[in-house]
């Protein structure tokens, strides 16, 4: 097992190297001049040249790349053109918000998706199966940003059940502790016995999490169902039946354990995709996370920020996939080393 993990981590290095390279050249080669972006249209040539020298933009591209690479390995993504702050710092500030949202969405999607998928497979072609699979199909066919808007329209504007955006009631003077507001709210509850921060954080989280989780939910439900159906047709299920094992146990122990193997992979991929899907959802729900930040960075052609954002999101994505692969080999005894 240890050797496998080590091998996989070593294998990651060229991939991450490729990611950094691609991110650098894509933006370095793209039209537009960062110096002009920073100084505005009316800046003098002298000022522009000065800034270019300062940013190292006057050097050959390959030299810039080498420089960038050497900084990236020290987790230095440069300074945001727009805010003037270190990109690493900005990302560190915003990351908890995105992770909290993505985790909430994923927990919601995985749990509901697996339950729906199992129930649908157990009663194949029943009303529940048809209805939930139709819903799942509609779920995967929706633009996520549109769903978010429609949900705001219905649940915030129409029914006034949830706030339209933000992470916490703005009237509360709240200083984040960990940056994960649910956790922070819980800490405050423990410390001061005041549940209002926890409740407010939860209240703000529900709508974006459900909106962001809908597509993964639909996908997980579909994969769970088809995986369950495939497993239920396997010989070892026939063996269990012919041994008199009760149906309930066959479904939820004998079959589900096997059926979950592909589902775990899908959950991992979806979790990674959620991080980028957040670009859309966070923008709509005014959720102060990486996605919204990256969106504005792209809009403003804030190259260091965009490069940094892409590299961080892709790295997290790759790490999650690695984690899922390892988890897969842990729950699949055919790969696990005894």
């Amino acid at each position, binding site marked *: 097992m240890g050797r496998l993990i080590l091998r996989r981590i070593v294998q990651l290095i060229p991939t991450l190297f490729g990611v950094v390279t691609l991110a650098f050249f894509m933006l370095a080669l793209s039209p537009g001049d960062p110096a002009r972006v920073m100084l505005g249209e009316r800046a003098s040539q002298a000022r522009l040249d000065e800034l270019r020298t300062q940013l190292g933009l006057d050097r050959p591209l390959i030299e810039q790349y080498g420089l960038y690479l050497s900084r990236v390995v020290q987790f230095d993504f440069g300074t945001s053109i727009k805010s003037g702050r270190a990109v690493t710092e900005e990302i560190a500030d915003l990351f908890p918000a995105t992770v909290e949202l993505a985790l909430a969405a994923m927990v919601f999607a995985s749990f509901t998706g697996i339950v729906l998928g199992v129930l649908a497979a157990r009663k194949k072609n029943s009303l529940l199966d048809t209805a939930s699979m139709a819903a799942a199909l509609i779920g995967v066919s929706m633009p996520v940003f549109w769903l978010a808007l429609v949900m705001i329209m219905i649940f915030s504007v129409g029914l006034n059940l949830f706030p339209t955006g933000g992470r916490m009631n703005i009237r509360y003077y709240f200083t984040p502790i960990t940056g994960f507001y649910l956790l922070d709210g819980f800490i405050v509850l423990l410390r001061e016995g005041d549940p209002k921060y926890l409740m407010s954080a939860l209240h703000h989280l529900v709508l974006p999490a459900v909106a962001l989780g809908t597509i993964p939910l639909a996908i997980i439900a579909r994969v769970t169902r088809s995986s369950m159906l495939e497993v239920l047709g396997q010989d*070892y299920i026939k063996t269990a039946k012919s041994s008199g094992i009760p149906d309930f146990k066959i479904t939820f122990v004998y079959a589900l354990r096997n059926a979950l193997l592909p589902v775990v992979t899908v959950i991992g991929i979806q979790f990674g995709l959620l991080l980028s899907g957040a670009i859309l959802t966070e923008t709509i729900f005014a959720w102060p996370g990486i996605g919204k930040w990256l969106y504005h960075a792209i809009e403003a052609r804030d190259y260091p920020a965009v490069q940094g954002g892409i590299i961080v999101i892709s790295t997290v994505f790759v790490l999650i996939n690695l984690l899922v692969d390892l988890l897969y080999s842990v729950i699949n*005894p055919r790969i696990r080393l005894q």
Partner: protein
Amino acid sequence: MDEPLLSIQDLKVDFSTNRGLVRAIRGVSFAIRKGETLALVGESGCGKSVTAHSITRLIPTPPGRITGGKILFEGVDLLQIPEPKLRDLRGSRISMIFQEPMTSLNPVFPIGSQIMDVLLTHTKMKKVDARAKALSLLELVKIPAPERRFKSYPHQLSGGMRQRVMIALALASPNPGLMIADEPTTALDVTIQAQILALLEDLKEKIGMALLLITHDMGVVAEVADRVAVMYAGRVVEEGEVFRIFENPSHPYTRGLLESLPSNPLYKETKRLKAIPGSVPDMITLGEGCPFANRCPLVRPECTLAFPEPTTLDTDHKVWCYAIEEEPVL
């Protein structure tokens, strides 16, 4: 004659397919006595596995459907009892082993716990006792170092070992009555097949259970069966004691089947086999007559109209064939 352990009477099973309704089993009857080994033999698609799976109602429904007949096990019609009662019988009085030992065991659980699960389902054993019993079962099926193997996963075992585990699983009951073995050695190498057949023989004697052996291999039949039922295209065409079947095969199909074997001493010199011409009929378009009529050397006009009633040649040797009266009865 004493009451048979299992008696199948006029069983009929249909399958609906894209191309139309397949009448896979068209009125099959046979019986197994306590402690006896009955081989249900026939070529692929003849319905022998479907028959076996019908006994414990493991036919996937849909597309399959049991449309008629009775399956009496110790006098109780298995087709009539409710599902929970049947489930109590499965694995305790009637157990099954399958062709593919590679896929018949759950890949994500250790084999010991799979055996324990069956024990705990059918008895009120404590876990410790179930573990001890499972270990003794592994020992019974001659798995070397059962203590160590107990925690093994199926993929860590060879095909032969897995089939032994399957047999142990089938014996995980306080009172096994009938074991249905569906092509238990087909996927195995011949040296391993010999081991498994010897083990089955041995266990039958020790435990006194009956064995319904589904196979296409006449060699396996000759090795282990007490009685034989020969199936062809959804019908039993001949049934009898194993010596009768091999020494006096009376249905033209049984005869053809035995003569097709390359190991038949008939061919030591000629270097040509006496093959049955033609191929198995399409089960969708097949009519009411004898399904073998289109390949039969003794075919008569009435053969294509209706399936014959059985002719009893002597005790326990029945043949479903019109041409049989002409044959001298031994």
